[in-house]
């Protein structure tokens, strides 16, 4: 469904992505893991058109989306839930969700179907419905994360890019959010590309994973294999080095 071919991206003079290639099949959940600065966020932003690639090609549903502006990428069906939620803080929950459907309003889609989707978001996250008139900035981190996901869903995306949805959240909230991702895949067949610091939780949810280091893919494979991989365990799952050496 999505295929990155030899993507190279620069931040000014920093070579942030070096010949990155990866792919996602329809309905798959794939996770990118790696340390800070490995290029996980850059991959998402390159797909979304925020930091365009300087070389390489991105294909989505067999069409190239390489040099598109962010809004055009959303139009093709890829929505990003950015790092740090980035909700519109001075706007209400409802307004945030409405803006998620901005392109659908622009294409004169009927309000009825947009409101139906808003109700769907409310069934996924009942807490957002309780707070629909509240300003987004006054909510807790977990609620803002739910809103950020809800906002992305309002665009009716075929594919969801999630950047560190668990960051700074209580374990129970993280569980709730990961459950929703699982449910999205089952009910809507949404394809998900998930970037996570919490590698263990991400690999448990995902079908496959890619491990990144300083802008390169160093390892890829089925998630359960990566969970058992000694190198991954040592570097990202917080297992004791000694324990692995002694084996």
């Amino acid at each position, binding site marked *: 469904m999505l295929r990155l071919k030899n993507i190279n991206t620069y931040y000014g003079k920093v070579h942030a992505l070096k010949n990155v290639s990866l792919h996602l099949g329809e309905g798959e959940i794939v996770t990118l893991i790696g340390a800070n600065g490995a290029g996980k966020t850059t991959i998402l932003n390159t797909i*979304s*058109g*925020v930091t365009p690639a300087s070389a390489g090609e991105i294909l989505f549903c067999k069409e190239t989306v390489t040099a598109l*502006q*962010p*809004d055009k990428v*959303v*139009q093709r069906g890829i*929505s*990003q839930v*950015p790092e740090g939620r*980035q*909700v*519109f*803080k*001075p*706007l209400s929950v409802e*307004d945030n969700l*409405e*803006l*998620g459907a*901005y*392109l659908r*309003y*622009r294409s004169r889609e009927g309000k009825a179907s947009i409101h139906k989707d808003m109700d769907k978001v409310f069934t996924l996250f009942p807490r957002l419905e309780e707070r629909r008139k509240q300003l987004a*900035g006054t909510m807790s981190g977990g609620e803002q994360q739910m809103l950020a996901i809800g*906002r*992305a869903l309002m*665009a009716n995306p075929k594919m969801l890019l999630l950047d560190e949805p668990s960051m700074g959240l209580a374990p129970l909230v993280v569980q709730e959010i990961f459950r929703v991702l699982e449910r999205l895949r089952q009910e809507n067949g949404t394809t998900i590309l998930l970037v996570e610091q919490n590698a263990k939780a991400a690999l448990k949810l995902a079908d496959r994973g890619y491990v990144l280091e300083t802008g390169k893919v160093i390892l890829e494979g089925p998630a359960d294999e990566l969970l058992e991989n000694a190198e991954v365990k040592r570097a990202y799952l917080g297992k004791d080095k000694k324990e692995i050496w002694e084996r």
Partner: protein
Amino acid sequence: MQFDQILQYVLSGLSTGAIYALIGIGFSIIYNATGIINFAQGEFVMLGGLLTLSCLELLKLPLWAAIPCAIAVSTVVGILFERLAIRPLKQPTPINLVIITIGGSILIRGLAMLVWGKDTHAIPPFSGDTPIAIGGATILPQHLWILAITLIIILINKVYFYHTISGKAMRACSYNRRAAGLVGIDVRRMVLFSFIISSAMGAVAGIIVAPLTMIAYDVGVMLGLKGFCAAIIGGMSSGVSTVIGGLILGVLESLGAGLISSGYKDAIAFIILLLILFIRPQGLFGKADSERV
């Protein structure tokens, strides 16, 4: 007697203040959508007034037709300004943008001088000039026009920014540009939109004030700075606080001119501007900028 005089100053101050408010909102809308302080804002005020004059005298249009015509042409100038001077910029750092808008304002003013000459012109008031008595003071019908039109524009703005998807999208751009792009809002289009709204509002301000103050190619400088001052008092909001900022400025200016000396009229505005910038840079009603982490 004294009270009547003060009432008089306050009333005329309110109508000049309304003009400052309109110009100030123009500044704020562009600033919020793009982070640019558009120092060419005052030139659209001048264009509104002078274009109305040309429509009346050269094209012999009636006033009701001349006004929309002048607004439309000023808006086209605003669009061209954004397209030719702002959008092509490779590295839009704040300092570059400020210099570009100042350059743009000098260019527009220079062209206006070539077209309309250096003379001061007058536009007839919208509905006669028989003074109306209010308490012990008198005001002109044009003052009422100014207050009414300003009020209507502010209400339209309110409806646009709070109750339409396009207005909400523009606010979203000002709160978080990157996130706005990621939900599918075309940020560049919104920038263009903000220039359209601001230049139209500037033109309206110029048109409604012209019958009172006369109009010439260089009125944009001072009116622009006063509008900027109103926006600063209002904390660069495109809503009520800038309106109040404009009204405060207008009234203080008028009181100062009347009670102290009319020679200090402009000085008062700039003293207020400096005081606000020194003491409360977030604006009179703004909260300190700590929540935007």
